[in-house]
Structures are given as structure tokens and as C-alpha cells.
């Protein structure tokens, strides 16, 4: 019943938050639910690692968790817990400053657990049709979160998000239907199931023409949701206009969930057609996203928009690494997902603190000298920025090195060179903006920063975990990622 409990915990919290009145109770419920999910996710992680090559199923075969799912569940749980820890003090300040109304605040606490439930369902469900429904559910539950502040710009961002997301999802649905049609090996009879695991078993017999078409539609569809260029235009808007806890969830895990859905189809397509078609498509879109992100980061004037473009770059890197299809690069992609999920929320949390202090995210209006006016936030922001640029001693350095080295090893040196160039551009952009903002004399008479324990914990714990895993990656965690990489390479 483990998988069922994982799904039920946040769902229950979301429903209870509809009725719970006292603020403290609502916050506690949220926190308890996500702590519970993390605990159960660890249980699942141990269970999956203990039985390599097999998957845990429940309700017949409706819910299914293999190593890839378990890894994603772990990421969702960690980011959601950090978010719920950060959200409580963040929204208390917003409520005190009348930036959000009580009603919107409640909306956040109902929708966020539902958003998390949707994401958990995406990674735990076996049926590809239900997976599409769950992806759509995550989009619907996050739209109103993006529009939470009800400013003109946030409504615009939400509208773009829902329209482009909706368009993408219609195309993904078409791709899903084409997959289903391709899987009808015996016409005239009703298909037994639309489960991913049973489709994988019959993949070589599936209609090749339809499957190619299906993968292209799914790539464009879920790729829109994953923010791959050139379908990424909603991404910087939504990530910058959403409240910081939501930005952290969107960037930390939601993008990767869409990527996960895409990967499931990639595995199917590879099993049906050989890895050529889907790998080269993933590689193209990934590299294009990486190259596109650099210039936008260099000329960006808004802190959160810059972070959003950095997410675009990292999603592109993961996609390209999977597309390179070498054992080392796919393992690197898995590691990169984890490290990015631990780093990016910290950056968005810090951006949230800065926004609440300065009431702007514009680099020019924030000025310089953040180290003096907000020492704690600035210190954590520096560490996270160093990590996101891929500098040692943080995990992203290791994963990026793996991907680049993997490219050289597998005779794809040009890909590694392109990745290196775009990483250097992003490095310059991020460091340039951050050094200008963090160092130097404090500009103006900024008020002293007020931080609560929760706030600092939410930002420092993920960073501490990231550093710990860089120096000492537990054996079981490495095994889990290796198994996940093996699944992507087509050996379940």
C-alpha cells in the first residue's frame, strides 16, 4: 500500500486545508503531509534498491514504481518539503503587508498539495493515458498559483502558461492516442491495457510509422510543459510572476516531471524503432535550449527571470545528455536532475526574500551591496549561485563533468564542445549579475533583514544535502540512479 499512501498524504492535506480554519493548523498540515511523503519516499527508495530490475505494483498494475519513478518521487518529496517549510514565514510576511488576501493564502495551501499529488501521480501511474491526465492536472492546479498575486503581469503570465500549456497538452494527447493506435497489434479486438510496462513488452511489433509520428507529437507536447526551446516562452513569465514557493516547485520539479513523461515515451520509441530517431530529436531540442538560454541570461534585468532561463538551460542539458545515449551521460543526467532540484529552489527562496525586502526584482533597482544589507540571504544565495554555475564543491560540477566526459568518450565530442560553450556563457552571465548585486557598498538605506528559523532552514538544508552528496554519495543512492539510467537505456 506504499504507493497509495504516497499519493494520499498530500491529497488529504489539500482537502483538509479546505476546511481547516486556524492558520497555524493549515501550515502544520501542509508540513506534516510533505514530511510524511518524504518518509514514504525513502521507504520506497529502499524497497526499490533492494530488488533491482523489478518494479513495485499496486491495484493490479495501475500504480507502478521502478527505479526511475522512485528517484522522481524522492525529488518531488524533497522539494515540496523545503517549499512548505519556506512558505509559512514567507506568506506570513505577505499577509502582514497585505500583499495577498486571506483567501488567496488559503488557495495556496489547497492548491500546492494538489499540485504535488498530480506530480506524484504522473511518476507513479502505469497507464500512459492516466499519465496525461495527471500532467494536465498539475498544469491546472499550478495556473491559479501563478496568478496568486493578481497583478496585471501575473495574470498575463498565467494566461500565457495555461494557453501554451493547454496547446502543448492537446498535442501530447494526440501523441498519446497515436501511441495507443500503434499498439493495436491485432485490429478488431479491444486492447487489454494501455500500461507502459505492457506496451514496452510488445514495442518491437508496434506500428513504426505511427510511433514515429506519436513521438514527435509527444515531444512537442510534453516539451512545451518541460520548457524546451522554442516552446519555452511561457516559462520565464510564469516562473518570475509566481510567488517564490511556487516558482521553486515549478522550476525544481514540475519541469522534470514533464521531462519524465517524455522519457517514458522515449524509452518506448527506442524499443520500437531503435534509439536513433528519438535520441537525435532530444539532442537537438536540448542543445537548442542550452544555446538559447545563454544570451537571455547575459542581458537579463530581472532576478527571477534570469533564474527561469537558467532552468531552461539545465532542462536542455538533461535532455541533451539523455539524447547522447551513452551510459555515463545518462547517469550524469539523473544526477543532474537531483542536484538541480536541490539548488534551484534555494535560489528562488533567496529571490523571494530579496523581493520582500526591496519590493522589486530588477537588478538596477536592487543595486549593490546585498552582502551588507541582507548578509544571511546573500551568503546562501552566493553558495547556491556558485553551485548552479557548476563550480566545485557542489554536485552540479560532478554531473556536468560526467555529461561532458561522456560525450568525449562516446565519439560525440562536438556535443560536449557545444555544451561547454553554452555553460561558459551562462557562467559569465550569472556571475556578472550576481557579483554586481551581492558585492560593493550597500545602496540606499535598506531596512535590516528579518529571518525566521524556518526560512533559513529551508534554504540551508538543501544546500547542506547537496554538499554532503557531492563528497559522499551513499551507495544505495548511486545504485538507484544507475538503475534509473539502465531503464532509460532500455534494459528494465
Amino acid at each position, binding site marked *: 500500500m506504499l504507493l497509495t499512501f504516497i499519493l494520499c498524504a498530500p491529497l488529504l492535506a489539500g482537502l483538509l486545508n479546505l476546511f481547516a480554519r486556524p492558520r497555524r493548523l493549515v501550515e502544520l498540515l501542509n508540513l506534516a503531509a510533505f514530511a510524511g511523503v518524504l518518509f514514504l519516499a525513502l521507504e520506497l527508495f529502499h524497497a526499490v534498491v533492494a530488488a533491482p530490475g523489478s518494479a513495485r505494483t499496486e491495484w493490479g498494475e495501475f500504480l507502478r514504481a521502478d527505479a526511475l519513478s522512485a528517484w522522481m518521487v524522492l525529488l518531488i518529496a524533497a522539494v515540496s518539503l523545503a517549499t512548505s517549510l519556506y512558505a509559512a514565514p514567507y506568506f506570513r510576511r505577505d499577509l502582514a503587508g497585505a500583499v495577498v488576501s486571506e483567501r488567496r493564502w488559503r488557495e495556496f495551501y489547497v492548491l500546492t498539495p494538489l499540485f504535488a499529488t498530480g506530480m506524484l501521480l504522473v511518476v507513479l501511474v502505469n497507464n500512459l493515458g492516466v499519465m496525461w491526465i495527471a500532467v494536465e492536472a498539475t498544469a491546472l492546479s499550478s*495556473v491559479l498559483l501563478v496568478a496568486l498575486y493578481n*497583478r496585471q503581469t501575473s495574470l498575463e503570465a498565467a*494566461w500565457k502558461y*495555461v494557453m501554451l500549456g493547454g496547446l502543448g497538452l*492537446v498535442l501530447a494527447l494526440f501523441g498519446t*492516442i497515436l501511441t495507443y*493506435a500503434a499498439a493495436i497489434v491485432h485490429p478488431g479486438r479491444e*486492447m487489454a491495457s494501455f500500461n507502459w510496462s505492457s506496451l514496452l513488452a510488445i514495442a518491437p511489433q508496434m506500428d513504426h510509422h505511427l510511433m514515429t509520428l506519436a513521438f514527435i507529437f509527444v515531444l512537442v507536447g510534453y516539451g512545451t510543459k518541460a520548457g524546451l526551446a522554442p516552446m519555452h516562452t511561457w516559462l520565464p513569465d510564469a516562473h518570475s*510572476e509566481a510567488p517564490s514557493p511556487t516558482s521553486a516547485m515549478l522550476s525544481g520539479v514540475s519541469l522534470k516531471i514533464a521531462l519524465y513523461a517524455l522519457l517514458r515515451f522515449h524509452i518506448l520509441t527506442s524499443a520500437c524503432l531503435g534509439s536513433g530517431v528519438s535520441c537525435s530529436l532530444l539532442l537537438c531540442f536540448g542543445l537548442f535550449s542550452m544555446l538559447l538560454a545563454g544570451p537571455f541570461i547575459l542581458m537579463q534585468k530581472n532576478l527571477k527571470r534570469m533564474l527561469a532561463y537558467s532552468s531552461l538551460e539545465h532542462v536542455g542539458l538533461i535532455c541533451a545528455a539523455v539524447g547522447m545515449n551513452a551510459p555515463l551521460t545518462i547517469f550524469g543526467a539523473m544526477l543532474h536532475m537531483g542536484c538541480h532540484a536541490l539548488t534551484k529552489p534555494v535560489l528562488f527562496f533567496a529571490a523571494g526574500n530579496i523581493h520582500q525586502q526591496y519590493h522589486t526584482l530588477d537588478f538596477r533597482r536592487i543595486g549593490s551591496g546585498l552582502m551588507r544589507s541582507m548578509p544571511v540571504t546573500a551568503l546562501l544565495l552566493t553558495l547556491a549561485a556558485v553551485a548552479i554555475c557548476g563550480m566545485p564543491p557542489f554536485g552540479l560540477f560532478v554531473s556536468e563533468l560526467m555529461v561532458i566526459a561522456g560525450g568525449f568518450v562516446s565519439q560525440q565530442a562536438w556535443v560536449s564542445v557545444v555544451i561547454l560553450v553554452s555553460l561558459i556563457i551562462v557562467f559569465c552571465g550569472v556571475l556578472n549579475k550576481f557579483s554586481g548585486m551581492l558585492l560593493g557598498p550597500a545602496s540606499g538605506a535598506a531596512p535590516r533583514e528579518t529571518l525566521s528559523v524556518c526560512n533559513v532552514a529551508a534554504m540551508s538544508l538543501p544546500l547542506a544535502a547537496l554538499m554532503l552528496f557531492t563528497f559522499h554519495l551513499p551507495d544505495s543512492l548511486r545504485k538507484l540512479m544507475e538503475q534509473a539510467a539502465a531503464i532509460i537505456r532500455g534494459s528494465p
Partner: protein
Amino acid sequence: MNPLNVQTASNLITLLASFMLVLQLLLAVQSMLVTNIRLFALQSLLLAAIAAVVGYAYGAWHVYVVALLTIIGKVFFLPWLLERLVRQIKIEQEVRPFVNMPASMLICGSLTVLAYVVARPITSLERLGSNTLAVAIALLLTGFFLMINRRKAITQVLALLTMENGVMLAAIALTTYGMPLVVEIGIFFDVVIAVMVLGILVFRIRETFASMDVSKLNQLKW
């Protein structure tokens, strides 16, 4: 199933699908908002009729459920919801597209031709009716055009819904029985909730901008 019945069913489905396409073209040139909503309802009714024909011809009860859900959801509930929204926020009735009517008619016509060309290599895979897949792709493409051609938020929602109709038509054409029931029901609820969420958003945009013209949503740039 007797073969005659299947043949008749196939012809009936082709006829109904082509009416869906005709309605889509009418949507492209119709300038009254409420009429647009009703045309969409009628198109959904045709989709439900196709599902019912499939259910009858092949004796598949779960396709009847799909037909029933489509009637409840897309023929009655969603149009009612959208019309209520139109009344609530008292928007003027004209749609005012970017491209004028004759030009958009021409564009939709050429998109339909394009859809037939695109669908040609895979028409052999259709399991029901003839050219239903081409109609489905035409609905997708013209829906896409309608979406970028309209200023009003509600008409963009309608365009998205017609695209969804096209996808569901493709599902029936390609697989005979449609998707598994659990998926169909899930999609149904997703679409209903999506329109409700969009309704909330449209309402808020109207309150904040005092307009529903989405071309005014242009403050965020790169």
C-alpha cells in the same frame, strides 16, 4: 456484428465527421460570441453522435458512456458555463479577429487541404470511416489558427476546445473503441475543470484590465 451494419456505420461516421469540419469553418467566420459557443456545442453533439454510432455498430457499451459524457459535458455544461460567463462580465458580442472573415475562410480552407495531404500516408491505418483522420487533423490545424486569430480570451478557450474535439475524433477513428474508459473519463473531467479554471482566470483578467482583449497582455518581454 454483421458486415452491412458496419458499412452503414462507417458511412454515417464519415458524414458526421464532415459536418464537424463544416461547423469548424463556420466558427472561423462567425462573429457573434454566443453563436460561436452554440456552434461548438453542436460540433460536440456530432462527436457524441459518432461515438454512439460506434457503440451501436460494434456493441461496445463503454463507447456509449463516452457519448453520454460528451453530451453532458461539452454539449450542455461547458456552453452553459461559457454563456453565463459572457453574461456576467457583459462583454460586447463582436469577436473582432485580427484577420478579416474572407481571408480567414481562405486560410482555414488551405489548412484543411494541408491536413488531407498530411494524413494521406496514414489513412490506411484508419479503422473507421474514410478520411476521418484527415478531418481530425484539419480540426487541430484550424483550431490552432482560430486561437491565434482571436483577441478575446473566451474565443481562445473555444478554439482550444475545438482542437480537443479533433483529438477525440482521431481517437475514435484510429482505434475504433476509443481510449480505455478510465482514460476517457479522466480526460472528460480534466476538460471540464480546465474550462472552469480558465473561467476564473478570464473573470480576473476582466476585473484587472477592464477588458478581455488578450492582445493587451503584453507587458512581459523576454
